[in-house]
């Protein structure tokens, strides 16, 4: 189970502007993450939970909360 808090913590470590409040509804493109940082976050979540994001579905993600949602969806689908 991937929690929004866990994703927020990962992102919080990467962003330079620490004053931005991170919530499930925070839009990802407002964070100014580099492509390298994004791949870092994505694969750290995958590594920690042993699954792989579907890249097509991942491309549709816009907020922090949706990352956790898609991750849990994928993990649940894999477990069935």
């Amino acid at each position: 189970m991937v929690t929004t808090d866990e994703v927020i913590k990962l992102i919080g470590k990467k962003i330079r502007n620490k004053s931005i409040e991170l919530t499930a509804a925070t839009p990802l493109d407002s964070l100014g993450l580099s492509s390298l940082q994004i791949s870092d976050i994505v694969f750290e979540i995958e590594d920690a939970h042993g699954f792989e994001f579907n890249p097509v579905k991942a491309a549709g993600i816009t907020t922090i909360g949706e990352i956790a949602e898609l991750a849990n969806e994928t993990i649940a689908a894999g477990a069935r």
Partner: protein
Amino acid sequence: MDGKEHKLFIIAASVIPLLGVVAVMVLLWNRVFGWSDLVVLAVMYTIAGLGVSIGYHRMLAHRAFRTHRWIYDAFAVAGTMAAQGPAIIWTAHHRRHHRVADKDGDPHSPYHGGTGRLALVRGLWHAHLGWLMDEKLTSDPLRYCPDLARDRHLRWISRHFVAIVVAGMLLPAALGFALTGSALGALTGFLWGGLARIFILNHITYAINSVGHVYGRRRFSTPDESRNVAWLSLASFGESWHNNHHAFPRSASHGMRWYEPDVSALVIGTLRRVGLAWDVITIDRARQEARAEGLARAGGGRHAAHQPAAPMAERMVDPALTRTTGDVE
């Protein structure tokens, strides 16, 4: 490292080494270039040069051979010391370059718009160094090299890029000190093996992107303007047989004749013989000739149709195609 930081780094990596060369010249006024400086320069040039040629280029970007984990990481770190950008970003740009070489979307084609002599000079500058100044240019690692971005070691090495570059400048200082036992030896070691080395090697590498797509001979009528540039071959460790490389990107050897020296291929061949590298991609003469004939019939150059027709972004629609695994043991 975001676009702005990358640009600032590239400017620093271009200007500071130039100042280093000036400092070296000033020092030379009083003191002759010593043997320790030559050793340090040669050692560091070889480490960083093979790091980029074998590590970043043939091993990471094109998976031309497989090797043990520690050698894989060592090559990636050596390539990082060349100060040409983090491994994952460098590789993403390079794979994109191959996908659309000398066409729209190529990050560093010298055919950058316009015709005439001025456009050519501008294009050469763009392909050489100008493209690295574009803050907005990104080649998404998730699209171009998910296999590498998925690798925890490579992510760590890419994240610690600046620290590794700095280590690559302190190393020649330590080497200079070890060889001479003096602080001056450490300083000139840093200047020659650190700054001057970065300056020389990076311009050799960038010349493959600029000169190597304009001036030189073409054995293969590839659908781009890649050229084989003999005079750059030794200094680039074989990278300048660039037309051969565009014809067979995965080949571990870029030199394809006895008179095409390719030091990187010799090193990979040696690793293979002693059991430290395997699954080395080789292209025999018959395949080379068949491809040369086929391409000659199809017609080459930057206006020719590119293969494969579908870019990676479209292939991503099929999840089966995106399932990649690391190529290391």
